[in-house]
């Protein structure tokens, strides 16, 4: 209810500001509203990332269904210890779309090896079988979602959701550089593309994991 009220208030405020007419709305705010209106036309879920308020909202049809508070939003890239060249930030407002999410590749597959004829009535069941012929509780436990994972975005960036940001003090960065150098010396180094990193509580990282699947749009804007 609180979230619905909040959404109502935010849209009302936006509408009020628009009605007031004395100050022209900011062009970027208008662009963001148009983008959201475009997303709300479709019956899909979309995410709204507001770096200013540090929240990720789960929305559909303009309504906030859930809110995930963020601990931090950072641009994280791999850089040499000297002569850094930080990547330029993607422009906002914008709609990013998940091109490939970790959820898409982590499904459990069940495949019975052979099938026997189905029993015709309850009498045909083996002793110990449940007489319920309906959906059985799945024998496969659902694997727990990870707390740190990357999704590829259609704009060429990665979206990295994590409960722990890489340490950033000078000493820790030096240690990380030595460790990475050692890995590279052994041919095990990994090159990651720059990532917009959303730091959040582990429970929150787990619960949005299934949302970051291919095709999920993320509207990035400030103060909707």
């Amino acid at each position, binding site marked *: 209810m609180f979230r619905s009220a909040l959404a109502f208030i935010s849209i009302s405020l936006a509408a009020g500001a628009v009605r007031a007419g004395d100050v022209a709305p900011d062009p970027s705010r208008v*662009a963001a509203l148009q983008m959201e209106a475009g997303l709300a036309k479709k019956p899909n879920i979309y995410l709204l990332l507001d*770096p200013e308020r540090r929240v990720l909202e789960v929305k*559909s049809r303009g309504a906030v269904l859930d809110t995930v508070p963020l601990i931090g939003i950072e641009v994280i890239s*791999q850089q040499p210890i000297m002569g850094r060249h930080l990547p330029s930030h993607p422009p906002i407002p914008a709609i990013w779309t998940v091109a490939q999410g970790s959820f898409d590749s982590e499904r459990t597959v*069940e495949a019975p090896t052979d099938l026997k004829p189905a029993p015709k009535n309850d009498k045909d069941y083996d002793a110990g079988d449940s007489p319920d012929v309906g959906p059985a509780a799945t024998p496969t436990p659902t694997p727990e979602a990870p707390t740190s994972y990357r999704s590829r975005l259609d704009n060429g960036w990665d979206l990295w959701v994590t409960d722990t940001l890489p340490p950033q003090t000078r000493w820790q960065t030096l240690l990380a550089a030595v460790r990475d*150098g050692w890995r590279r010396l052994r041919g095990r180094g990994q090159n*990651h593309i720059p990532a917009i990193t959303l730091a959040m509580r582990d429970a929150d990282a787990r619960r949005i994991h299934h949302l970051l699947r291919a095709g999920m749009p993320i509207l990035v804007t400030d103060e909707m």
Partner: protein
Amino acid sequence: MTAETPETPVTVEPRRSRWPLAVGLFFVALLLIACGVAAVLARMGRPFIASPFNATPSVGVVGQNAAQLTRLASEAVKEIQQVEPKGTYIVVDTYRNRLRLIDNGTVIRNAICSSGTGTVLKDPRTGKEWVFDTPMGERIVQRKVRHPVWAKPDWAFIEDGYLPPKDSSERFDNETLGDYAMYIGDGYIIHGTLFQSLLGRSITHGCVRLGDADLEFVYHHVPIGTRVYLY
């Protein structure tokens, strides 16, 4: 006669051990080598460097004057308001397995439910796959049925290791769905369960299961056409 010079006693200074110096030098050398190696490795390494995300809007609607911007913003706000859920609607959180029934902005029922496992079932004969996801997005209650009968699809047999029967009469089951069912399209249903103790877990094949009391409450408060938001 020779004057004997008194013999000065020769004091032999105890020879200083050079080991501590050698050991010290060894460790200094070791340290220097370690520092050198570390410097080379650090130069090769590419650690993660964070910089704050720039939240300053940098793009926007271009080529519009103030009046046009106001009109465009007003139109966008109206469009959003038109499609926003109103009145009675259902929200299902498939991760926490919670169903909320909302009436005019007030949550009138907060129920524990069960949703899809997200697993994939493969038919060993044909290779056909079923993905047991609860769909995401907006759906509409298309049909409401008391004492629903479930026509078991192929996957329900294959999952249990059985061949799907050719005689369709062997597919009907009037117990599994519970007392009420609300059909939300594409075969997905909000229904009851025989496995009440498993509510709150992701164990279904995509449908949303509710406990008896919650199912009855939702069924009686939800008219056909009610919007259901699943995420």
